[in-house]
């Protein structure tokens, strides 16, 4: 016997009637499973961005921007807290989720396993990664059938706007300085394609269709990728940066100008352009293996609990 109070059919009827799901009593087991999967990805992503950004705060060029990054880290932990809290309400053992899992079992996008090692990379992360988060969560806010999440996202949305604006403002400011501009371009060169990957498998290869089917999100992976490029590409072009995508008048959308997906060397932070397009199976194998900072970031989050357990 599962946790859901309704059958799949009843859930679909409820959603079609335009009624939201308030809790397990309005949901089916499959709906709950799909919701949990979605919430875990969201929670893990917010949480892991904390150690990632915290490390890069050390590269802040003044105390004011140091304060901004520390505040952004606090926001991200708050957003993670919201998603984990909803998982707890669904009956998930959240302590086990955060402190019991192995680093490779976390579900955040691979991009966060590649450490940010300069101010240029930090502000591009704000502009690219926080924009990705904003695109994904705005879609959830607009379309989700799960009422508690919709309510919680009002404040999250606003805070993410501050994060990506922080990045865009710094990029605009440094775009006029040659050396800084080169470093930002180098960061964009590896981070742009990594963020394109973030949105996941192209629609024709996607296995789980429950997220759209149950109204947990509205746009498909490819549509979300388009929404992200619609914001990011014109911004980069406006400030004189090259990114491998352009607007195509004919199709009315953005077209990626490099091989995609591509092989990536996370240590060198370089894409293997000469090798060209690889398969999504290759990409998933890289994702499953996780990236260079995965172990360090997760252990950093788990360290306090481990220390107390050892002391006892």
């Amino acid at each position, binding site marked *: 016997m599962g946790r859901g109070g309704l059958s799949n059919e009843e859930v679909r009827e409820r959603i079609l009637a335009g009624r939201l799901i308030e809790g397990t009593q309005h949901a089916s087991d499959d709906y709950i499973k799909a919701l949990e999967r979605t919430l875990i990805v969201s929670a893990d992503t917010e949480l892991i961005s904390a150690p990632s950004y915290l490390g890069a705060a050390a590269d802040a060029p003044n105390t*004011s*921007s140091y*304060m*901004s990054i*520390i*505040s*952004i880290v606090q926001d991200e932990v708050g957003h993670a807290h919201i998603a984990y809290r909803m998982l707890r309400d669904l009956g998930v053992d959240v302590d086990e989720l955060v402190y019991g899992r192995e680093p490779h079992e976390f579900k955040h996008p691979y991009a966060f396993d590649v450490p940010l090692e300069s101010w240029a990379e930090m502000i591009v992360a704000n502009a690219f990664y926080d924009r990705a988060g904003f695109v994904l969560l705005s879609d959830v806010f607009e379309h989700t059938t799960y009422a508690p999440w919709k309510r919680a996202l*009002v*404040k999250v949305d*606003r*805070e993410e*706007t*501050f994060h990506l*604006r*922080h990045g865009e*403002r710094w990029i605009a400011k440094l775009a006029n300085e040659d050396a800084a501009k080169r470093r930002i371009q180098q960061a964009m060169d590896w981070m742009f394609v990594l963020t394109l990957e973030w949105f996941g498998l192209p629609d024709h290869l996607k296995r789980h269709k429950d997220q759209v089917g149950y109204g947990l999100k509205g746009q498909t992976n490819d549509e979300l990728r388009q929404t992200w490029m619609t914001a990011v590409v014109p911004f980069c072009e406006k400030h004189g940066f090259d990114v491998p995508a352009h607007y195509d008048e004919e199709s009315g959308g953005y077209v990626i100008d490099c091989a995609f997906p591509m092989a990536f060397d996370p240590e060198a932070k370089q894409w293997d352009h000469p090798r060209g397009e690889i398969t999504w199976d290759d990409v998933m194998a890289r994702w499953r293996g996780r990236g260079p900072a995965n172990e360090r970031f997760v252990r950093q989050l788990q360290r306090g609990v481990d220390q107390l357990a050892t002391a006892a």
Partner: protein
Amino acid sequence: MAAVRGACDGSVQRSAVWAALEHVEDPELPLTITDLGLVRRLEIAGGRVRVGLTYTSLACPCNEMIREDVEAALLAVPGVMAVTVDEVLEPWSREDVTPRGRELLRAVAVV
């Protein structure tokens, strides 16, 4: 340091300056800095405007952003030639938020 722009004929309306400030939004909350109660001083001398701002916390993560937004908004007011933003570091509390601001904050469940 003052943000400076071209020439000026010296006639700047206080009401025009205030109206411009009323359009500067807080970067994290959906209300303006005037509704939030951040503007504490406003001096106008010829084309030079001096604004005193406080922030909701001493470690306000947005103070640079707000300062730049204020400078940009005021430099767009006809006649304004230079803008100086001072951090006055006066205490701020929710009592400083205008009634309209409080309504807006209630809508996003902040107060």
